[in-house]
């Protein structure tokens, strides 16, 4: 027998595990925790989804989940990965966005429903304005489209001259 998502107990333990590359976010904030099943025989199945298909943090998440659940007395833990529906930055919670900004990382914009048709190629710089997480100015520019983790880009504020990370809208 499977008792569905056991919120309030096992779920809370799994939800509090933090992202290995963005430790200000929990897996629940990031929106990658898809399900927690507690079985009658004491086993636990946790389902997570990768942010990017090749995200190397996934393995660390798996180990951290096992370790934290073991601390809470759950020793028979299986961590599964699901690809569907694909994670987008729209899965990031409002709480997660607030924590990112507080830590100096500009949160992603809400992208909304994705087109199912061909993706147009735009050569002009993206129109979306990213506000500086330090001084709030909207006058910022891209330094590098790829950053130190799979999900961030590097930007600089033209007003306060500070560089900062931006979680890419994807």
């Amino acid at each position, binding site marked *: 027998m499977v008792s569905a998502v056991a919120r309030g107990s096992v779920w809370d333990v799994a939800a509090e595990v933090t992202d290995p590359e963005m430790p200000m976010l929990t897996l629940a904030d990031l929106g990658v925790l898809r399900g927690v099943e507690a079985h009658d025989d004491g086993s636990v199945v946790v389902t997570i989804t*990768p942010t990017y*298909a*090749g*995200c190397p943090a996934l393995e660390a998440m798996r180990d951290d989940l096992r370790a934290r659940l073991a*601390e809470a007395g759950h020793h028979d833990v299986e961590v599964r990965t699901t*690809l569907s529906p694909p994670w987008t930055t729209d899965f990031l919670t409002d709480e997660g966005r607030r924590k990112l900004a507080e830590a100096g990382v500009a949160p992603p914009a809400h992208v909304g429903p994705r087109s*199912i048709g061909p993706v147009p*190629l735009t*050569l002009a710089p993206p129109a979306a304005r990213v506000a500086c997480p330090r001084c709030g100015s909207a006058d910022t520019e891209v330094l590098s489209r790829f950053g130190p983790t799979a999900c961030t880009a590097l930007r600089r504020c033209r007003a306060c001259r500070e560089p900062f990370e931006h979680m890419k809208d994807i």
Partner: protein
Amino acid sequence: MNAVDTEDNVYDALAAADHDGRWAHGAGFDETVVEVTAPAPEGVDVGDLATYCLMLADDALVASHRLSEWATHAPELEEEVALANIALDLLGQARVLLSRAGHLGAAARFRTPTTATQLADEDVLAYFRDDRFFRNVTLAETDLGDFGRTTAWMLVYSSWRLALMTRLRGSADPVLAAVAAKAVPELSYQREYAAGWLLRLGDGTELSHARAQAGLEDVWPFVEELFLTHPVEARLVAAGVAVDPAALRADVDSDLAQVLPAATLTRPERPAVGLVGGRGGRDGVHTEALGRVLAVMQSLARAHPDATW
């Protein structure tokens, strides 16, 4: 194993994690991606589906390896990070597709008695397959040369793979559909990166223009193969599983028609590299470049198949 009192020391925590005896060269364990174990859609030939998964996996795996060759060699730190990130995205696609091919039976024949540990299907397929069993298009294996050529290569490759993955989201196979849905935003980001650099190089200095144009000329002979329909693909298109490569030409042409003039580059007119007796990369007939890629990628794992850490 005791994970309770390891919070203060990251090394203790690593030692306590479930890593003992992990294979040294690859994933070392079967990722439990839940979609991978789904049965093949009804009426679809399992061998064909496994082969198609290998085709799309090898396109990504070999291209990913080529891009990773830029590590420590890129012109700027930012570009090194970018190329490594793109390589990682492609590797992520390859791993799921190889696992799917393995689940459908494609890995069994490549398991050898020398591999004492129970290797994951994706590792067996990546490390213990000879070049004639790789199904990638030859564009994926070609030498990326300088940064100009890499940029031209990446625009063609990402434009083509994006067009393919965009359509594959509707595949009757749940794994292909899930991989495609995940890949579309990543590839679209890669295409923008490549287009942005091609604009800067093409419409830059005399030297950067010359090298971008030369890179495009070098890549061009491998483009035609991208649009050839292999019999396996044709059968799976009919079953609603695969995308017909012939249908992708218009999308790639449209991207090139947008980028090349803006970059003051000229569309090459070089002839295509021909197939050998009607056979190309999709049949395991490759250029000599793939042998060099695999020599680097596979030799350590083959020399020490039982190494663990």
